[in-house]
């Protein structure tokens, strides 16, 4: 039925089956959309956020998707700037994942602010001292870049590509993509960093504050680094998942191994920096403000040392070690474990840098503030996931996302 749109020679499941899958995910999407409209029309009282928890679940999701979406800029950087050519076989997918992550992030920001219709004030009345201003500018600009990076892939759709203009446009865009990739990498570097800066500059919050370089607290660099390190884990994880769902091998092992290896070394270097940062903060910064490390991890029912250990050791050191070691990296099971742990690790880091900051009491007579999200927050947080699944499903079905797909799946005579 829709075979005219499906990339030539590719095998896709029957349309009804596809439609049912999409319908199920769309139901989840609609639930999220409903919650989103509730937040817009009735206000943020639909959430369980409060004056202590001004940043909550979906801002964590926002930071997390940006972090894991970091696979796009980093893979782009490697492919176009460092000319690691194997990565062309996964770059399309990395870009799509990035596109999903960043469009979601922008959508979440639009839901999160109390006055969405004034959101543009952040550009119009920009305060250059604010990390959030930097985030807004870079995020929007990078989203534009990702869109540009995504367009050629869309134009390669079998029908679109028949239009000569689109065909040439796609071709020429590929030609200049290095420029966009460079721009994207630069922008990404800054907004990933400024997201880290958001926490690090809050010198009223001893849990968040970090010293740094010039106007940038260490968290600025750590965020960029961690996004570059863990982003590819997520790209690999989604690739693996897509392969599992479609039942096909889509990317060759050498590509996977290469990306995993790069990711592994990035994780290792990152985690060393993170450990140094944490140690310095715990032993110098916080004590200079009158806080023991234990202040941040005890006296409450949720945030314990387990969080710190999980983030740094289990989801940092362990995946790093697995991915830099050839034997473990090339073992599919262990590699899967590593990329899952890595993805969790970076999400956990973002959780800590958003939610735990809000929870820790600062005034000596204040108490821990814990919160439980409302269903509207959960629905709105799930919304981008559903949207991502749908977009990937459509992209996979109708666009030549994986250049190696045909080669890896020799087409047998089709009976239709």
């Amino acid at each position, binding site marked *: 039925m829709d075979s005219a749109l499906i990339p030539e020679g590719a095998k896709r499941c029957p349309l009804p089956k596809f439609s049912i899958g999409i319908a199920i995910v769309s139901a989840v999407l609609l639930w999220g959309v409903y919650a989103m409209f509730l937040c817009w029309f009735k206000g943020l009282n639909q959430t369980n956020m409060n004056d202590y928890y001004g940043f909550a679940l979906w801002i964590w999701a926002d930071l997390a998707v940006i972090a894991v979406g970091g696979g796009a800029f980093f893979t782009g950087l490697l492919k176009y700037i460092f000319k690691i050519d194997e990565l062309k076989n996964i770059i399309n997918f990395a870009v799509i994942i990035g596109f999903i992550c960043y469009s979601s992030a922008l959508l979440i920001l639009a839901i999160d*602010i*109390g006055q969405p219709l004034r959101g543009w004030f952040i550009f*119009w009345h920009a305060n250059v001292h*604010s990390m959030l201003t930097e985030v807004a500018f870079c995020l929007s600009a990078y989203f534009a870049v990702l869109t540009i990076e995504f367009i050629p892939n869309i134009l390669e759709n079998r029908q679109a590509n028949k239009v000569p203009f689109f065909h040439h446009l796609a071709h020429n865009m590929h030609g200049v993509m290095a420029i966009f990739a460079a721009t994207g990498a630069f922008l990404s570097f800054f907004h990933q960093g400024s997201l880290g800066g958001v926490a690090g500059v809050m010198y009223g*919050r001893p849990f968040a504050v970090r010293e740094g370089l010039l106007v940038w607290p260490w968290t600025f660099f750590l965020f960029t680094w961690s996004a570059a390190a863990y982003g590819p884990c997520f790209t690999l994880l989604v690739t693996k998942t897509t392969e599992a769902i479609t039942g096909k091998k889509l990317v060759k092992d050498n590509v996977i191994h290469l990306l995993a290896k790069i990711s592994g070394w990035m994780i290792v270097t990152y985690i060393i920096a993170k450990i140094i940062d944490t140690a310095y903060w715990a032993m110098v910064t916080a004590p200079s403000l009158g*806080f023991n490390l234990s202040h941040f991890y005890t006296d409450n029912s949720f945030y314990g040392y387990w969080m710190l250990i999980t983030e740094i050791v289990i989801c940092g050191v362990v995946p790093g070690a697995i991915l830099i070691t050839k034997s473990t990296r090339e073992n599919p099971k262990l590699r899967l474990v590593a990329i899952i742990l890595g993805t969790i690790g970076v999400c956990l880091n973002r959780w800590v840098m958003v939610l735990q900051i809000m929870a820790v009491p*600062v005034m*000596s*007579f204040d108490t821990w503030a814990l919160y439980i999200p409302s269903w509207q927050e959960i629905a709105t947080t799930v919304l981008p996931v559903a949207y991502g699944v749908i977009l990937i499903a459509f992209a996979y079905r109708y666009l030549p996302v994986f250049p190696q797909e045909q080669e890896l799946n020799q087409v047998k005579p089709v009976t239709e």
Partner: protein
Amino acid sequence: MVQENHNSAYKFGMVIDLDKCTGCGSCMVSCMAENNVPFKEDETNKKDSITWMRVYKLTNDKPFPDTEVVYMPRPCQQCGGKGDHGHSPCVSVCPAVATDYGYDTGIVSQIYTRCFGCRYCMGACPYHARYFNWWDPKWPEGMEKYLSPNVSPRMRGVVEKCSFCYHRYQAARDKAYAHGNKDHIKEEDYQTACTTACPAGAIVFGDLNNPAHEVHQIVKPDPHPDPRNKHVAGKSRNPKIFRLLERLGTNPKVYYLSEREWVRKQGDNYLEGEWEKIKNHHGKASHG
């Protein structure tokens, strides 16, 4: 943000005598009535209850019958930021300049029509002095008639906080202008609504830069930065006076006074044994 010479301007501040404070709540209500603060059916979730002035209850945590209690009124601390240069924790993070530092007054403003509700400032403020309008403000039928035209009611979705009753400053400034002395606002002409309401006289308000003002005389702010912490300026030379979280370098303009050591200690966080070492350290001019 033009940085004028901070010292030639006003620097309005407060000192609250915690030994006099009774926890009566007049300051809270006076603030709400003065500044058109709304109320809702259930205000017992103190984490979403708008009280520009909030009175905290502090205890020494000793068992019966040695328990002691002190009340601590907490308006916005009107932080001068690190080194008192005007980069208050909240001001420096606001992406839209919806909250700003007044170099002429030392007052941190909040512009409701500019604020787009990102709440970054709330995260940055360690005093929880900022409140978000989670709901549309609503008054029972007819009650909106008591609203004051001096302060605009806030719409849903924006942040608000204590303004040191800025409209009272504006009125005093107008008065000074009318009397041809625009640079001299009289102490009695600009007093905040919480100060004038306090039945115990626990709050003293005025210009910290003006030696003729009572607040200056009580606080005796040290003009030099704290030698132990370059971010801290304007430390009190009165050993019974402290500021909240002074070590963070937020440089509040709200000072607290108490004879009780355990109260002063709760003003900040200290590692074990640290308090004993530094409790008697006050502005260096105090040695003279």
